[in-house]
């Protein structure tokens, strides 16, 4: 069983760990450290907490390399994890391709959530009720009718581009906007970006697709 440490912005792992451990019924516990930077003494505390709760510490994964290196230095079984396509209901994500782009072929249906720490190029639709979020840009070669979040770790230059941009909600960095109510012009790709702290939608321009 894998325990995932809480998101840094929500809770401190030291506060949440006892609770997580008490809910865990299996002996061997794998830990996903998420985006926590943990040094050797943090990891010693962590491993002591796991042992005190009567469990055995198995594998340690994390997105922060320093954490993984520290864990290996302590002799723990550690490996880095990728953030992309965490949701098991989104099986079509292709990790190959440029390191800064996640390509996904297929429609995101209601309840699906595609998430990546890279820009996402989705070949398919985002249906109402589905979510797509990236720390960078979101490009949808199809209809965007769900919720899209670009720059979900604060990047204000992130863009959302879709062949048909009619989302329920758009988010860029920490700005939220409702989607437009009127029907889009047929055959006009649109893009959303932050302008003066507000999300603005306009026809997509070729430069949007070029590397910044």
């Amino acid at each position, binding site marked *: 069983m894998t325990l995932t440490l809480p998101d840094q912005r929500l809770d401190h792992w030291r506060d949440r760990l006892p609770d997580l451990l008490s809910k865990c019924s299996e002996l061997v516990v794998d830990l996903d450290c998420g985006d926590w930077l943990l040094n050797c003494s943090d990891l010693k505390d962590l491993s002591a907490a796991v042992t005190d709760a009567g469990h055995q510490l198995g594998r340690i994964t994390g997105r922060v390399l320093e954490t993984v290196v520290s864990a290996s230095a302590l002799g723990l079984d550690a490996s880095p994890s990728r953030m992309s396509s965490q949701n*098991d*209901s989104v*099986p079509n994500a292709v990790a190959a391709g440029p390191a800064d782009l996640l390509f996904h072929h297929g*429609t*995101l*249906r*209601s*309840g*699906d959530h595609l998430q990546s720490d890279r820009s996402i190029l989705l070949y398919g*639709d985002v*249906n*109402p*009720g589905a979510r797509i979020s990236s720390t960078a840009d979101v490009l949808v070669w199809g209809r965007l*009718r769900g919720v899209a979040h670009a720059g979900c770790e604060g990047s204000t230059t992130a863009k959302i581009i879709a062949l048909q941009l009619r989302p329920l909600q758009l988010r860029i960095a920490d700005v939220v906007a409702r989607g437009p109510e009127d029907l889009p012009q047929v055959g006009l790709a649109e893009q959303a970006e932050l302008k003066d702290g507000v999300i603005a939608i306009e026809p997509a321009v070729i430069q949007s697709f070029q590397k910044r």
Partner: protein
Amino acid sequence: MSTTRTILICSGKGGVGKTTTTANLGIALARQGAKTVVLDADFGLRNLDLLLGLENRIVYTAQEVLAETCRLEQALVKHKQEPNLALLPAGNPRMLEWLKPKDMQAIVALLERQFDYVLIDCPAGIEDGFKNAAAAAREAVVITTPEVAAVRDADRVIGLLNTQGVQPVQLVLNRVRPKMMSNQEMLSVDDVTDILALPLLGLVFEDEQVIVSTNRGEPLTLSDSSSPAAQAYGNIAQRLQGEDIPLMDPSQARRGLRARMRQLMQTRIF
């Protein structure tokens, strides 16, 4: 290698007509000569036996079959008028917990030995009941109505079915009101297929006869009823068997109905 087709009938949202469709489709398939069994996986709130008029004939369920306290033949309830159709309740309403996906697979494996079609009536929702029912299915028919909530839930269910590898998934659009559709007061057929992106297996028009037949425990397809819903279910069954039957057109159907009504009145009066 069995050629049995095990079809899950599901919707996500409740009240869109899963059980009604299962009952009518089961009868229609049986009438067309296919040995069919309907498996009621919604046994917590089991209704399929009611709709088929078989409530008072249930003695055993699949639960007893798996526990080997009875034989499969004892648990199968044969339909009175339509001997090609059998009903098997998956479990006892008071013992919801016992059923696991592997039990469901075991039941279906037993049924596949002697039937051409296994129709699984799935419970509403996407929790354990759905997962159990879906575990044993090879293909699926998703029922939805032209309502935003029903379409949204169907979309979710289709996503889940895709991850389980259930293939093909087809769509039945139920309770279509041609008049509201032509007045654009209801989602159109295109609106629905646009979002769900599935092949349309059939359209069923809203029909008061469905309520009457449901309460009587005699599915519409059992008689040679000319009601639009009965015909629609018949067509769906034929399409499932691989026949190429054109879909009803809501805008044409309205005229057709009215014309037929007029005809009927004329024949009676003169």
